[in-house]
């Protein structure tokens, strides 16, 4: 009697891809990923998490900032396959409509955006800044938020929002 081959076992990894397990916003997913795929493209195009934005795609604007194991990085300059086993948090994982993260509420309260394109990156970056615990004063927050450009120029309100949340936590 022929043994049935479980085709799923053999077809799981397309040629040229690397099986990679990522926990994204609390959900563990294993994917066969082409090694030249950036984390940013994986999130937006592979996982349909389009909250993370592509701005410059060269590490010069910060719009793509996400948290990897709690640390903020530019997802556009990170190959997804190098993160096997990591925990990724995107803006969708921080808060949702009706259940906003304190930073999201503070950005609303302080009018800390106009077009909103940089905002997911700003908020993930601010959470990374809070995790680092190095910024206490206005000057320190300004300097340590400098990796996120806002072409609408909402900077002063962004700093107000971040300071507000740091103050609440202190």
């Amino acid at each position: 009697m022929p043994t049935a081959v479980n085709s799923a076992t053999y077809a799981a990894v397309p040629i040229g891809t690397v099986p990679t397990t990522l926990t994204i916003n609390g959900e563990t997913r294993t994917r066969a990923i082409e090694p030249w795929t950036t984390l940013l493209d994986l999130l937006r195009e592979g996982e349909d998490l389009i909250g993370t934005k592509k701005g410059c795609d060269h590490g010069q604007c910060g719009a793509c900032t996400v948290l990897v194991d709690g640390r903020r990085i530019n997802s556009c300059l990170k190959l997804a396959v190098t993160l096997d086993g990591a925990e990724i948090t995107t803006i969708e994982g921080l808060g949702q409509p009706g259940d906003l993260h304190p930073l999201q509420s503070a950005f609303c309260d302080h009018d800390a955006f106009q077009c909103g394109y940089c905002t997911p990156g700003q908020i993930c970056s601010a959470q990374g800044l809070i995790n680092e615990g190095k910024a206490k004063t206005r000057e320190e927050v300004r300097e340590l938020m400098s990796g996120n450009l806002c072409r609408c120029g909402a900077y002063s309100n962004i700093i107000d929002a971040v300071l507000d949340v740091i103050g609440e936590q202190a």
Partner: protein
Amino acid sequence: MNRFDYARPASVAEAVQAGAGEQVRYLAGGTNLIDLMKENVDRPMTVIDINRLPLDAIEELDGGGLRLGALVPNSNTAWDARVEQRYPLLSSAILAGASPQLRNAATNGGNLNQRTRCYYFYDVATPCNKREPGSGCGAIGGVNRIHAILGASDQCIATHPSDMCVALAVLDATVQVTGPDGDRAIPIADYHRLPGDEPWRDNTLKPGELVTGIDLPAEDFTQNYTYLKLRDRLSYAFALVSIAVVMRVEDGTIAEARVALGGVAHKPWRSTEAEKLLKGQQPSPQAFGAFADALLAGAVGQGENDFKILLARKGIIRALKQAAEATPQSQTDKRVA
């Protein structure tokens, strides 16, 4: 980005074996390499992911120094309590560079090996002897505001963009490497090189060699130091000119001073000969100015960057004053005192 084979070796020996081939690149934080690959400036056939190698610690060295693992992120290095206390210049220089996100990903080894930000090097539609040997230099006679004033050649006027390396230059750090021919230690002064007639070579690594760590000597400078970075924006911009200084002051006299410049040459620019002028001097604008003239001897502008010569001279004098007075430049409050 071109397609490539991906390997993730489990040991340094395996990595070096895989790294010996043609068109192979070691991938650490990726903040420079991935960008270069997106621009088609670099098109490796094989990418070796070294992120799982055990080179991610900062360790005490026998005799009092520190070894900074090649894979320790820049931010972890800058905020390591031992580095902050014993090598505050290094912390300051790292924090002056890039952005928090980039520093979280970029590693110490990658910082050493990052490539120039010359516009022509990045633009594959233009000639560049560094990217395409023999094709010419677009920057000479072109747009060259950010380019070299010292040590350039008629083939390349690119600068090394690192802040960290400028600090390492005055700390007399040593780069530890391993490769097909075994381990060796390279003094930081000999690690990067001037372009000469081989501008495609940024450093003296041999094919397949891998940086494993950076050793800092026991001698620390915790009072009289500064990292002064002058740039077009206050943050998140490469240096037009930067100045790293460490100094020992005894009874109001300079017992020793070391000065390196960033943003002005293909490598951190330092002259131990010129530094002798400061030894035994009392801190003064005259002594600092004479030193600046000696360090900048032979400086040549390329047109748009002529201003860098005067900017460097004034910056050197200001940085020496900051170091002598033990008032290092803050990387948060950017006002220059």
